[in-house]
């Protein structure tokens, strides 16, 4: 087949990019080579629109062992232990085939983690769907949830936290972001950088089939009405094989046989072999006749571009092949020597004794295009003047019930009950809290993790939104008593060729970077998903931030459930009553304009660190951060979890009741303390110049405002749980 511009464009390459390939090679590529270029140069693998801006991320810190650029980030959690973690998107495939798309998303991120020598100890996910009324939403939600569960439950890794959001901007593009944490001995971490010449290149895991060919290119394209035709590009997951692969890899890793290892994720054998060679500044030679294939007559093009799951590429020390093979035989997995490392600095591929690919590695990696795309700044919207008279007409009881049952606030128990969250026997905080917490097996330490996004804020003002999510992640970790250590981010955006979308990306990144730097909360891994757009309609900018924190003594962990009648409830941080972009303004007043709440990084840091001091001194009985829905929603959750009520003190604040209760000012927490500790707590808060308000006292079962019981905890629970339960079974 003669390769021309038309074929190149069908492969997702731009005209200029095809010309560049011809210039670099000084010839026209053959079809396999074109396939390899298109896989390596697409957005998903090359980060060509984002790399320029990602450089600005704050990625260094005392605890960072490995930052972005590897299979996953690694942080030090004292002693010999380190946590390997990363979040990754699987948006496009999940929209086309929700079960398999989500399942293989979970499988892929777990492979990234155990590839580094870590045993996965927790899974987390962030999923976004279109409006609940949209005809596709219910089935997509069900399929994705079952896919996540189907994969993670089978492997036996607990799913300890997550978030599920709904917004009409995801009607045509859902988001499925999966995150995994693994535990590794910090002296035994494995990397993808190849080293040494003439070392055997080993293929292990499942056989290669025709599934997922061009998956990475599909993930770099916008959707149109013909999207259903792309179903064959979605990979099919086999969690059982992944479990075997994980056990076999971890067994092989217990000695020094492996030089480098890389999972075959997006763009399969192509990206794994090129990345290993590129990082090691070596060449690589492969014989595709040696690759275990599931189907007959597969061509080199298909073998190189297949995204069949559960496969790994390993570079071994010479002479270790026999020993390694024995381990993979034990686990019933394919094991094949398919090539070797070379001095050539080229990727050379043979098939039927003919050389079918001959490309210098740097053409695929360093010479891949990089764009500083045009982007537009988003102005801070004007503040909305809310009409006091309108607010006065509202009844607090009705509003509270309505907000509690809002799809973005309501209880998600019937989702996370489908995920095994207790296997491995170390889950000490289940989903539904501020963060999930698992113990570091056999120690006093525990690791907390949460995932957050705030697309509404990011859409209104990306710079503020970017900062806000980092702060929210920080608060979620603080609230369980964990010291926040590092984050991973999954940057889900629309079409980068559109200036507004690109601007959203640039400014969110800037916001994330500023906040993570100020809070010493570095980014150690992540991924970018662009082109979340259907028929010219893009999603709201949705960076998801996965935060990880350390609890040195797990017995000091804090939960959000109210503990005891007569205890005192205190709000930490100042309440100004910011209603713009709040769930109250949007869902009760239908007011969607205005700026998101301001971020004051000094207060965030100071308030958070002070809470940690209080927890360290064991002065806090329960804690919860205030986020979506404001004080009253945070308080309602604490009541529901603890099956208690609260009697609120008379409001001293001069602002309107609705602003006070539903305002979404940042940097705030609610804590519960005993009466005996009040003096001590106040002293510490005052010494650290932390603003606080005494809010309420814990009572048996009602929420009492102005001496009047407005709702019982049972009614709160019903409002909070009913909607999703009914929605899921319809």
């Amino acid at each position, binding site marked *: 087949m003669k390769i021309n511009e038309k074929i190149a464009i069908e492969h997702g390459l731009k005209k200029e990019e095809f010309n560049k390939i011809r210039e670099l090679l000084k010839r026209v590529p053959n079809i396999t080579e074109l396939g390899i270029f298109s896989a390596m140069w697409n957005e998903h693998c090359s980060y060509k629109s984002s790399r320029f801006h990602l450089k600005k991320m704050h990625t260094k810190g005392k605890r960072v062992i490995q930052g972005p650029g590897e299979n996953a980030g690694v942080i030090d959690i004292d002693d010999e232990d380190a946590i390997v973690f990363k979040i990754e998107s699987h948006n496009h495939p999940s929209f086309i085939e929700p079960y398999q798309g989500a399942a293989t998303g979970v499988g892929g991120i777990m492979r990234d983690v155990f590839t580094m020598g870590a045993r996965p100890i927790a899974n987390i996910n962030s999923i976004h769907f279109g409006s609940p009324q949209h005809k596709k939403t219910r089935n997509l939600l069900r399929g994705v949830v079952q896919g996540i569960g189907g994969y993670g439950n089978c492997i036996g890794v607990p799913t300890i936290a997550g978030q599920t959001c709904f917004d009409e901007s995801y009607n045509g593009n859902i988001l499925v972001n999966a995150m995994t944490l693994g535990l590794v001995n910090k002296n035994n971490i494995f990397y993808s950088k190849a080293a040494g010449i003439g070392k055997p290149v080993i293929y292990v895991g499942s056989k290669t089939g025709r599934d997922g060919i061009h998956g990475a290119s599909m993930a770099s394209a916008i959707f149109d009405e013909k999207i259903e035709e792309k179903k064959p590009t979605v990979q099919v997951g086999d969690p*059982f094989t992944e479990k075997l692969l994980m056990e076999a890899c971890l067994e092989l890793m217990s000695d020094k046989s492996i030089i480098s290892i890389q999972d075959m994720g997006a763009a399969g054998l192509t990206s794994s072999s090129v990345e290993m060679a590129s990082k090691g500044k070596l060449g690589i030679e492969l014989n595709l006749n040696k690759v275990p294939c599931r189907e007959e007559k597969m061509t080199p093009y298909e073998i190189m571009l297949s995204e069949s799951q559960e496969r790994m590429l390993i570079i071994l020390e010479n002479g270790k092949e026999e020993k390694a093979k024995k381990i993979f035989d034990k686990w019933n997995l394919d094991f094949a020597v398919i090539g070797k490392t070379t001095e050539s600095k080229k990727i050379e591929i043979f098939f039927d004794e003919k050389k079918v690919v001959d490309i210098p590695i740097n053409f695929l990696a360093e010479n891949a295009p990089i764009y500083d795309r045009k982007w537009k700044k988003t102005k801070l919207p004007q503040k909305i003047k809310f009409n006091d008279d309108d607010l006065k007409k509202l009844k607090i009881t009705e509003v509270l019930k309505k907000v509690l049952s809002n799809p973005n606030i309501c209880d998600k128990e019937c989702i996370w009950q*489908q995920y095994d969250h207790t296997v491995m*026997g170390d889950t000490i905080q289940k989903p539904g809290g501020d963060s999930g917490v698992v*113990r570091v097996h056999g120690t006093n330490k525990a690791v907390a993790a949460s995932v957050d996004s705030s697309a509404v804020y990011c859409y209104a003002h990306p710079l503020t939104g970017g900062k806000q999510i980092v702060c929210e992640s920080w608060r979620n970790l603080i609230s369980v008593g964990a010291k926040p250590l590092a984050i991973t981010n999954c940057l889900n955006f629309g079409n980068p060729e559109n200036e507004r979308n690109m601007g959203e990306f640039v400014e969110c990144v800037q916001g994330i970077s500023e906040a993570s730097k100020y809070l010493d909360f570095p980014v150690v891994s992540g991924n970018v998903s662009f082109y979340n757009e259907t028929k010219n309609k893009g999603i709201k900018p949705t960076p998801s931030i996965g935060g990880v924190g350390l609890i040195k003594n797990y017995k000091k962990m804090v939960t959000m459930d109210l503990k005891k009648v007569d205890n005192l409830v205190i709000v930490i941080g100042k309440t100004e009553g910011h209603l713009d972009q709040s769930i109250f303004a949007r869902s009760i007043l239908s007011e969607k304009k205005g700026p998101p709440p301001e971020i004051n990084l000094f207060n965030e840091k100071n308030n958070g660190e002070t809470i940690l001091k209080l927890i360290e001194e064991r002065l806090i009985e329960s804690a919860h951060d205030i986020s979506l829905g404001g004080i009253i929603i945070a308080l309602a959750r604490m009541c529901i979890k603890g099956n208690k009520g609260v009697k609120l003190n008379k409001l001293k604040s001069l602002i309107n009741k609705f602003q006070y209760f539903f305002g979404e000012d940042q940097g705030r927490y609610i804590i519960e303390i005993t009466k005996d500790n009040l003096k001590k707590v106040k002293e510490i808060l005052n010494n650290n110049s932390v603003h606080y308000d005494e809010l309420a006292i814990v009572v048996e079962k009602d929420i009492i405002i102005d001496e009047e019981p407005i709702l019982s905890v049972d009614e709160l629970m019903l409002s909070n749980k009913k909607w999703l339960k009914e929605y899921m079974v319809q």
Partner: protein
Amino acid sequence: MKSSVIIFPGSNCDRDMDVALKKFGFKNQMVWHNDPNLPKSDLIILPGGFSYGDYLRCGGIAAKSKIIKSVVDFANSGGLVVGVCNGFQILIETGLLPGALLRNKYLEFICKNVFIKINNSENKYFKNIKKNILKLHIAHNEGNYFCSPDELKFIEDNNQIAVNYCNKNGDISEEDNPNGSIDNIAGIFNKSKNILGMMPHPERMIDSYLSGEDGSIFFENLIGNLK
């Protein structure tokens, strides 16, 4: 007391079970499915997980694995065998226990705390147990116990129902049946009560920082009865 936990490819509660058994004083060893012989044991445990991916039918392939023959011999000679979750499914597939475990009634995987009531304590597992109602944890997709009316009568006549799902007061009703099991059956014995299969995971509830510690009661009682 010596115990053995069998590991099948795809087992994933093997370590949790090992941790629990050791915590309560068992000398536990792990046995690979391909081993020809069982080590000398006072108790054999088939752990939870997805043996062989559960691709054929839950527990179907594991029931034909190499080690299973020794397990069946051990059980038939009166040895104590416990199957938890996937282990229960395997015991059913081997024919050591009657009935079948179907997909959960609402066709969803369920992971949550449940209460179970001990129905028969005249056996090595529950004799002298200090609480009759235990809070344990379930995590399964196929735990909906089913059998024919004749089988059910046989099971009941022989007092083979081990535990039922119930509420915290021990009342057994459809409301507290998480998966659609007949008569809220959560676990059963064989006729001579040396084999126990149950869906709830006692090994996940062994200290107060987890979802609960009623699993400890099960293990403490069991080792006490074996001594």
